[in-house]
């Protein structure tokens, strides 16, 4: 069914249209969230939140951008919110542990393995995802949208509501930073070797 018809039907409260929307874009939304938060449970949570938001605020979608672009924007915003909440929780847990109060221990997760990576590149991609995590927010989003979601620079610029040249600059800086971090990572490994 055409994207615009689906959106119009959802605006009228059609549940079948909502089901079609979820089933059409669930992989895209989940994959984007997974690329950013690097945790399957959190990504599932964010994907659900994204569709709930779509259901509630479809009325505010004016059709000025593509529906998928709007969906990407919501997903990215939700994923970043989720990360901020998690960081706050981690910091709060640390402060509570200083005062001796019992709190949920937030354990750093092991290296992230993206299920879509080819088997012989699993180890290298885990190192890369770890380095991506340390990038500044904008560079991380641009790099993830381009490399993990396969969006073109033009599409990334539409999602991030910026110019293509800004995305090019973000990508360049992201690659330079990643190279530095990877160099540090492998030099550190060499030092640790007996």
């Amino acid at each position, binding site marked *: 069914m055409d994207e615009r018809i689906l959106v119009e039907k959802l605006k009228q409260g059609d549940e079948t249209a909502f*089901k079609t929307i*979820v*089933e059409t874009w*669930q*992989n*895209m939304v*989940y*994959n984007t969230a*997974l690329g950013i938060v690097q945790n*399957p449970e959190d*990504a*599932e949570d964010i*994907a*659900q*939140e994204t*569709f*709930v938001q779509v*259901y509630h605020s479809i009325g505010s979608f004016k059709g000025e951008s593509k529906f998928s672009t709007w969906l990407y924007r919501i997903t990215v915003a939700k994923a970043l919110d989720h990360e901020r909440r998690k960081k706050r929780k981690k910091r709060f847990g640390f402060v509570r542990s200083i005062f001796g109060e019992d709190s949920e221990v937030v354990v750093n997760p092991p290296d992230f393995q*993206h*299920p*879509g*990576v*080819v088997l012989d*590149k699993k180890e*290298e*991609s885990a*190192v*890369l995802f770890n*380095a991506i995590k340390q990038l500044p927010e904008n560079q991380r989003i641009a790099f993830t949208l381009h*490399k*993990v979601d*396969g969006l073109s620079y033009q599409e990334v610029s539409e999602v991030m509501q910026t110019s293509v040249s800004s995305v090019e600059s973000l990508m360049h800086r992201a*690659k330079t930073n*990643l*190279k530095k971090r*990877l*160099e540090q990572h*492998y*030099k550190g490994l*060499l030092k640790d070797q007996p």
Partner: protein
Amino acid sequence: MNSKPELEKKIQQVLDSLDGIQRAEPRPFFYTRVLGRLQADEKTIWETMGSFLSRPVVAVAGLCVILILNGFILFQQEKESGIATPIVNSNEIVTDNEYILASSSSFEYENMDQQ
């Protein structure tokens, strides 16, 4: 990987490791879970509203608003009907006088009986 070219080659391999990546998929029955989330969220709105209204500050403020509204309405009604002065009805005075007379006459009658 001891030499610089080897290190650079490795880094490039790592950077290219996401080439040809496939899209990850959520667990089956994702739509059912989204529906569950939607319903749970609707419940939460009512719960939030309930807990907001039951807060002492909100409850007291609500009570004050009701009392102020009541006072205002009463004030307005009195203002509309003019100043309420006690109007003495002449018939009522007569009735009262009759009652007094009647009672005094009954008293006298009882007194007479005792005599």
